[in-house]
């Protein structure tokens, strides 16, 4: 008798986002740090953790930032929120990885030790010189999450700062200075159905001791993390190629974001964290429940939502492929894993 197949870690921890056979936008928020069992494993036990892509994704972020500094926006009035963000991120990492990471406070001095990156720093809150870096930039060098900070004033939430290198078809530099409601203006259905106004009212009342999360999803042609508006010419056309090349369909990625919504304790700003997970259709096929469910969702998806997510043209080829996947799945899967490691 053969032993059951070993499920790779990144499949086992993948936040498969379809609890139901149809998908609509909804105010799908739930308390953070709640583990979710899936057909392949579990996700969501920690607010922030480091997975097997940790070092590579952080190295990729550093390269992207060096090439395009506009991916980070900071502002003097958001400095307090940036320190809040840094301390929250380090504290959550330490909680998830106590054997490798420690955040310790002795009086006013914090000590951060991250063995995964061979990092050790002693710093005081509010003193960037002691940290040796801008607090937002340093936070982005320690967590895989993209970061957006919103300020609450006059009954609105304004995107005022952030560090985003792994956007899915949007641009931080474009959205900075806009309100939450303006940023979500183009999303279909959600205004008429009250999804965004409810989310807005929810965020205005969010309290520091109650972080929340939601998932969102899209599809992309390859495992490239940086799909920001700024680099569209580099990644946009690849999605079109999948329409005409059946061999490329298995390389399409289900791209899932786990987004955390957190009221920061001392500044009162809202921290929006986005962690991007990628799974190729070939890897998805290794979990039969997921393949079946994804086909159901895709088949039923209304045209306007499919258009907004950029998957309208992919629907037929993907459904066809899910029913009759091509040969050589395993070897292509290995290639896609190595591609995910190499910054492009």
């Amino acid at each position, binding site marked *: 008798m053969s032993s059951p197949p070993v499920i790779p870690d990144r499949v086992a921890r993948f936040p498969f986002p379809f609890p139901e056979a149809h998908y609509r936008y909804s105010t799908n928020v739930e*308390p953070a740090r709640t583990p979710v069992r899936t057909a392949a494993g579990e996700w969501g036990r920690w607010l922030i953790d480091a997975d097997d892509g940790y070092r590579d994704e952080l190295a990729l972020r550093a390269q992207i930032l060096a090439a395009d500094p506009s991916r980070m926006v900071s502002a003097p009035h958001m400095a307090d*929120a940036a320190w809040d963000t840094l301390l929250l991120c380090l504290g959550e990492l330490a909680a998830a990885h106590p054997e490798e990471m420690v955040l310790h406070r002795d009086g006013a001095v914090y000590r951060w030790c991250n063995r995964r990156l061979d990092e050790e720093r002693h710093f005081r809150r509010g003193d960037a010189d002691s940290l040796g870096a801008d607090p937002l930039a340093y936070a982005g060098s320690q967590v895989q999450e993209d970061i957006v900070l919103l300020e609450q004033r006059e009954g609105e939430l304004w995107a005022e700062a952030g560090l985003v290198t792994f956007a899915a078809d949007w641009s931080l530099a474009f959205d900075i200075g806009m309100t939450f409601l303006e940023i979500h203006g183009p999303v279909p259905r959600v205004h008429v159905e009250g999804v965004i106004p409810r989310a807005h009212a929810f965020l205005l009342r969010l309290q520091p001791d109650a972080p929340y999360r939601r998932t969102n999803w899209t599809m992309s042609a390859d495992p490239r993390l940086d799909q920001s508006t700024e680099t569209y010419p580099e990644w946009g056309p690849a999605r079109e190629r999948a329409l005409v090349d059946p061999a490329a369909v298995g390389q399409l990625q289900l791209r899932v974001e786990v987004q955390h919504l957190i009221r920061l304790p*001392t500044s009162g700003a809202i921290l929006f964290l986005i962690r991007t997970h990628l799974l190729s259709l070939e890897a998805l096929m290794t979990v039969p429940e997921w393949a079946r469910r994804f086909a159901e969702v895709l088949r039923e998806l209304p045209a306007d939502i499919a258009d907004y997510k950029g998957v309208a043209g992919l629907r037929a080829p993907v459904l066809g492929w899910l029913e009759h996947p091509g040969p050589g799945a395993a070897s292509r899967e290995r290639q896609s894993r190595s591609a995910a490691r190499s910054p492009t």
Partner: protein
Amino acid sequence: MSTPEQRLCVATIRRTGTVAHLRLGPSDGRPLGSFTPGSHILIQTPASVNAYSLTGPHVDPGAYEISVQRHRDRGGSAWLHQLSVGHTVSVSGPVSGFAPVLSAAHHLFIVGGIGVTPILSHVRAAVTGSRSFEVIDAHRPGPAAHRDELTRLCGSRLTTVTDRGALLQRLTERLADQPLGTIAYLCGPAEMMAAVRALADRLGWPAERIRSEAFTGVALAPGRPFRVRLARSRRRVAVAAGVSLLEALETAGIAVPHRCRQGVCGECRVGVLAGRPEHRDLYLTESERASGDALMACVSRCLDDELELAL
């Protein structure tokens, strides 16, 4: 709903006139959470759940500090006044509903009497963050709670007035001469806050640039107790004050699908067959609320003594 679920221990207690100052420390040595300036905590007293502003340092506090004005007609404050060192009390986590506007060009704090309490943490944050600010403080002649500390923090940025005429004169001067982007924060007696708003309105202030502390604005009130009758299972469940209908049903072993516990996601919608729901959610539309045939169990309650539910 934020409920008093953390046990804290009275570390020190001292008095200024009719105000008791309590420092509440962790009884298990675990550090307390930082809080946003202007935050309050809820404290369970035998008579009621009361809200008190946090007056101490807001970053990595060693204790939560509150100041309790003794009211003759409110049992809660009298109970807190008779506590002594070592007593434990049930306290919620910090609730923020009166936060500083981070991008304000200037912060104008207007304080009346015991309304100083939520302003102290604002002023401390403004000092450490090098923010531009000033304070207009009105209180009766003689000593008043926290004024030594306020003076020490503010220096020349503090104006103190002890009569109505002087207050109005000072307010008129300062409200008429502010840089664009000033935010005014009010905390004091309701009559005084209304007078300040009226004056600011006459001087052309946009209403949203004036913030005032309203303890009930953010956290949902614990609500009155009520009962539910379950039509299908023919059971009855009591819902105590401070306990949500969803929690009471869960405790009774009745599963209701839910997600956010904040009245937002719509998962815990339950049909109402009789009785008038008190809607406190953000999910149902106005017409759904008016029809009264469903409620969100995680936050909503009952206007009467009993509801009949389709469970």
